[in-house]
């Protein structure tokens, strides 16, 4: 470990302790970093200084700056470098940066993209945005003020978003008389705070953005500091190691099929390397093949690596539509519909569990629900605590349920395949940044690519499989009608199965109670069983109270819209209570059953059921006729598979 008056290294990373090599190749590629700090720490001034020192400010921009400095500046007669980077009119007048702005500069050794992010508490989302694409963060600290709540918050967000390289820029060192002791104390404070944050290296530099000390040239005022200048450090820091070391992943972005002789899968390699002849599998189907060609406009490549945009041709004709992921058979991503994730919540209205969104990861967009808020992070204390909701800029640990399987990795292992966004289904806004912490639903579950699929099974039975879901109050007649429907289907030669709430609760669901969460799980399991039976080619009749609309909507998404028929048995509650075939209403009224739908718990009627049955329409036989009339045409095969029925 270096002495505190030098570049400080929190870990024992030898690379950054080594002296700076003099013979670097001229082009070290591109470094993306973000700058963050509290209001008035001097971020904009520092970026302006970096642009100025690297000769990135041109004459006409400089003359505009002189004009602006006189009008809005805060530095008297001097150029106000901060005005160079504050872009929008309103914030120029407010004197603060309110959004993420990107700046560009280059030295002979490297090119840089800077994300300038704000210090205001309410703009955490912008900082997360800037951090998501950065490899390094410069945390600014005002030497007069030391570490602030905001500094800590920014360090935590940078860490959560996977940034492993940090520069602690102790700015305005001129205003504390270039005092080494002040610098050493801030560095020690930061080390104590940042120890659990997992940074690979932390380099502390005392500087003055306004006057340029230790920005591009060593400061004569600080002979006690013998570490690198900021520019020197940015030019040489090594950040690329992680991406190419991880297993191969490529989300399929585009299927390139210009003619019958060519079919390629286009995408950008998220991590690892791939070569011609390597084995790959399609993550969600499990189908495997070998890489036959790696095609680019500039000719075929023998191999390609993380960050390359390529088109892969496989040796076998297998399906991999947009949204699929290619991976090596022996190091596949998790395939899951349920996982834990860190969320940075970015919308005005707080997140409450149970809300449904669109989730985008890789090239895949699927409906998803945040089913549980496990905890919320107290950023200042770096502690997780219980929470009911996640407010704007809140960071929480949540459980996510997707309506279809997605291929994911933990974010700590892969910053591309472990990341997702949540999109509001009504406003289309991006409302959360998500980072997978842990896939749920059993480790190492991978679908095998079986040759006999739903289409084959249903063709054999000469019918299109269907899930017919009867919902309604207890005693409404669901099971009675479903039973009649099944008898007639079987008589007509159809292959069927009937599931009802009681039969599942005796066996598969015997561990579940009747509170809202158990009811949701009851329905989820019933839906999974129904889906599997539908995969077997059957017409599955399901009779469940299923009182919650969100649960039924999830089923519809899980089964697939085209194969799901919702039947609302709309018998009024007084009629049901009158019938009371199992004596349940009487017990509930007497207080013997809590959470009884229709008495203690609400029933949410469907808003767009395919079929609605009312007792006034006739007896059970007549109602069963109505169901049959509606579903028979959808079951009638004509040799078509259920995939086609989606178009109906």
């Amino acid at each position: 470990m270096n002495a505190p008056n030098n570049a400080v290294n929190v870990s024992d990373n030898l690379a950054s302790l080594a002296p700076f090599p003099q013979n670097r190749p001229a082009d070290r590629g591109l470094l993306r970093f973000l700058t963050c700090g509290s209001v008035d720490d001097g971020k904009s001034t520092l970026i302006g200084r970096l642009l100025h020192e690297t000769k990135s400010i041109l004459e006409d921009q400089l003359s505009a700056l002189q004009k602006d400095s006189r009008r809005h500046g805060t530095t008297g007669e001097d150029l106000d470098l901060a005005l160079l980077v504050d872009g929008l009119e309103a914030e120029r007048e407010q004197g603060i940066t309110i959004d993420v702005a990107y700046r560009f500069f280059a030295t002979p050794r490297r090119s840089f993209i800077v994300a300038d992010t704000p210090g205001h508490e309410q703009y955490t989302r912008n900082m997360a945005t800037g951090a998501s694409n950065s490899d390094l963060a410069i945390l600014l600290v005002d030497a007069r003020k030391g570490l602030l709540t905001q500094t800590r918050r920014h360090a935590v967000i940078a860490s959560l978003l996977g940034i492993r390289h940090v520069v602690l820029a102790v700015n305005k060192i001129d205003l504390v008389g270039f005092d080494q002791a002040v610098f050493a104390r801030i560095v020690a404070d930061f080390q104590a705070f940042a120890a659990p944050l997992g940074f690979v290296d932390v380099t502390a530099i005392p500087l003055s953005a306004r006057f340029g000390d230790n920005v591009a040239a060593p400061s004569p005022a600080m002979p006690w500091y013998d570490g690198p200048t900021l520019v020197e450090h940015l030019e040489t820091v090594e950040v690329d190691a992680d991406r190419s070391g991880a297993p191969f992943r490529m989300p399929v972005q585009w299927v390139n099929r210009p003619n019958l002789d060519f079919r390629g899968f286009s995408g950008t390699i998220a991590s690892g390397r791939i070569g011609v002849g390597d084995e790959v599998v399609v993550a969600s189907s499990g189908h495997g093949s070998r890489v036959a060609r790696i095609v680019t406009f500039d000719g075929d490549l023998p191999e390609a690596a993380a960050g390359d945009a390529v088109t892969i041709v496989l040796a076998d004709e297998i399906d991999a539509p947009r949204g699929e992921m290619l991976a090596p058979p022996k190091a596949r991503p998790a395939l899951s519909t349920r996982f834990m994730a860190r969320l940075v919540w970015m919308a005005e209205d707080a997140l409450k569990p149970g809300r449904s969104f669109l989730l985008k990861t890789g090239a895949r967009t699927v409906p998803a629900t945040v089913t549980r808020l496990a905890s919320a992070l107290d950023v200042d204390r770096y502690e997780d605590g219980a929470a009911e909701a996640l407010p704007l800029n809140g960071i929480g640990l949540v459980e996510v349920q997707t309506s279809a399987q997605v291929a994911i990795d933990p974010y700590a292992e892969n910053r591309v395949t472990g990341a997702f966004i949540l999109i509001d289904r009504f406003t289309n806004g991006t409302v959360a940044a998500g980072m997978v912490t842990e896939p749920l639903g059993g480790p190492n579950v991978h679908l095998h690519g079986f040759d006999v699929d739903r289409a084959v099974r249903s063709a054999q039975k000469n019918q299109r499989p269907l899930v017919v879901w009867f919902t309604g109050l207890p005693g409404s007649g669901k099971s009675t009608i479903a039973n009649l429907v099944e008898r007639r289907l079987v008589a007509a030669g159809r292959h069927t199965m009937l599931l009802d709430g009681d039969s599942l609760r005796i066996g598969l669901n015997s561990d579940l109670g009747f509170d809202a969460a158990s009811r949701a799980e009851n329905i989820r399991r019933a839906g999974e069983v129904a889906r599997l039976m539908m995969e077997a080619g059957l017409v599955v009749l399901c009779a469940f109270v299923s009182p919650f609309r969100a649960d039924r909507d999830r089923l519809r998404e899980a089964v697939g819209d085209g194969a799901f028929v919702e039947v609302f048995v709309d018998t009024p509650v007084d009629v049901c209570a009158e019938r009371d075939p199992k004596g349940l209403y009487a017990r509930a009224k007497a207080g013997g059953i809590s959470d009884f739908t229709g008495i203690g718990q609400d029933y949410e009627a469907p808003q767009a059921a395919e079929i609605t049955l009312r007792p006034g329409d006739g007896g059970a036989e007549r109602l069963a006729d109505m169901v049959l009339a509606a579903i028979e045409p959808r079951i009638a095969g004509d040799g078509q598979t259920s995939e086609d029925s989606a178009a109906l």
Partner: protein
Amino acid sequence: MSAPLQAVSPGVAQGVAPALEGLAPSGAAPRPALSPHLARLEAESIYIIREVAAEFGNPVMLYSIGKDSAVMLHLARKAFFPGPLPFPLLHVDTRWKFREMITFRDAIAARYGLELLTHVNPEGAARGIDPFTSGSALHTQVMKTEGLKQALEKWKFDGAFGGARRDEEKSRAKERIFSHRTAAHAWEPRNQRPELWSLFNTRIARGESMRVFPLSNWTELDVWQYILAEDIPVVPLYFARERPVVERDGALIMVDDGRMPLLPGETPQMRLVRFRTLGCYPLTGAVESSATSLQDIIAELMASRASERQGRVIDHDDQASMERKKREGYF
């Protein structure tokens, strides 16, 4: 590196079409690998272009004929190779572009077999809007901004690529790569979606659209170095040669055709000039330069002390004028 584009060297500048023939694909001779940072910019842009083609129902690439459009088109051809571009190009013509630009545009479209749509604002044309009598602001508003909106509505495009870069101007620096526009084509700087990782949210409501800028993270120098490395044809106006210009309000304006009214005392003079950006000729100032090759341009740029938009008359209208134009729907 082989010699720069024969096609666009000044000696043959007027003959764009034959020059393009001289640009037969070099094919056999492999080019040196791109520098790491250009390779990364290229791959990131290709990703963006593929994402738009995959997620929008009716995308289009706005092709303004300049160097940025040339790079953007090249990247799109790479993105879908060996397939064709899955979207058309659209040029909004103001009727005041340099003649060489139009010749070049048509030659490129023919050469690569591209579907090229063009649109001129018919009301503007009927009213006789021009940059001289109507003024630069009105001309740009009617022929460019309104013309663009008309074209997007006419063909019902929901996603439109533009070649803008964040380094061009301060307000551009904060613009997203996927920039949402309301049904009225307005940009709302206060209501932008956060852009995390490369997970672009492409969802829009009916009537809304998205402007997409695949070159957001490129600088002017990157663009020229890439043109050099990839041998991309560009309009010969970028290279210095003797051209007839008049000096007006501090800018060197090229007299490109007989429609330009000369003021008392103005006589076109032949001067060795080139253009750093291309637009409507009366609104685009030339710079004095002797750069006749791509290497010369890059050397000039690296030593340059002025930004490329300096030659643009419209940007000087007033402070923060670009931001105002964008809110109104200017690209």
